[in-house]
């Protein structure tokens, strides 16, 4: 079953605006990751945040993790039309078998 629920399901913004997506999960995790998928193609890994980290940056991406609330957010600053894609959070459970479980995804549209 899916570990993460994402919110919103869909998001439409103007180019230059910031986009924020949220992910909630159910069990203790080793790490949480965000992936991007362009139009039904393969997924691209964006960023990984470990359970002992609270915030991480990569270029225009900022990820936060709140393990007490079992939630994470992905912020894309100064969005571009090329950021239009589906974004998925994914988790690796703490301990044992290192399976990656994907959330429901957020479909982002950036309007030029």
């Amino acid at each position: 079953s899916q570990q993460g629920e994402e919110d919103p399901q869909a998001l439409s913004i103007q180019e230059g605006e910031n986009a924020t997506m949220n992910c909630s999960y159910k069990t203790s995790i080793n790490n949480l990751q965000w992936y991007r998928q362009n139009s039904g193609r393969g997924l691209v890994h964006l960023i990984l945040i470990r359970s002992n980290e609270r915030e991480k940056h990569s270029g225009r991406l900022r990820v936060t993790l709140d393990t007490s609330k079992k939630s994470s957010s992905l912020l894309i600053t100064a969005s571009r039309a090329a950021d239009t894609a589906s974004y998925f959070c994914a988790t690796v459970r703490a301990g044992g078998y290192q399976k990656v479980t994907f959330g429901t995804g957020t479909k982002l549209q950036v309007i030029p």
Partner: protein
Amino acid sequence: SAVISQKPSRDICQRGTSLTIQCQVDSQVTMMFWYRQQPGQSLTLIATANQGSEATYESGFVIDKFPISRPNLTFSTLTVSNMSPEDSSIYLCSVDTGTRGPGELFFGEGSRLTVL
């Protein structure tokens, strides 16, 4: 990182037939995964294919329907057997190179199957 090639990229199949998807990686990797993505949905793990052992299937997926081969550290196949329209999905091969942390996956471009 890893570069993954999947074949076919798409296919249209008739009900009752079987199709084998190939996944080739440009480096040796231990852990390889097959995911299914039904239209408009998220990814669901079908099975983990580690070289030298039988594939481990997730709940709801069985070997008779989705046989997997993993003959070496750079190649795997997934067969979708006796297909029905419900099998219309994107099938994705992925690998964990283990370079930065458990579960950082690299994906192929996917194989989009349509079953008529």
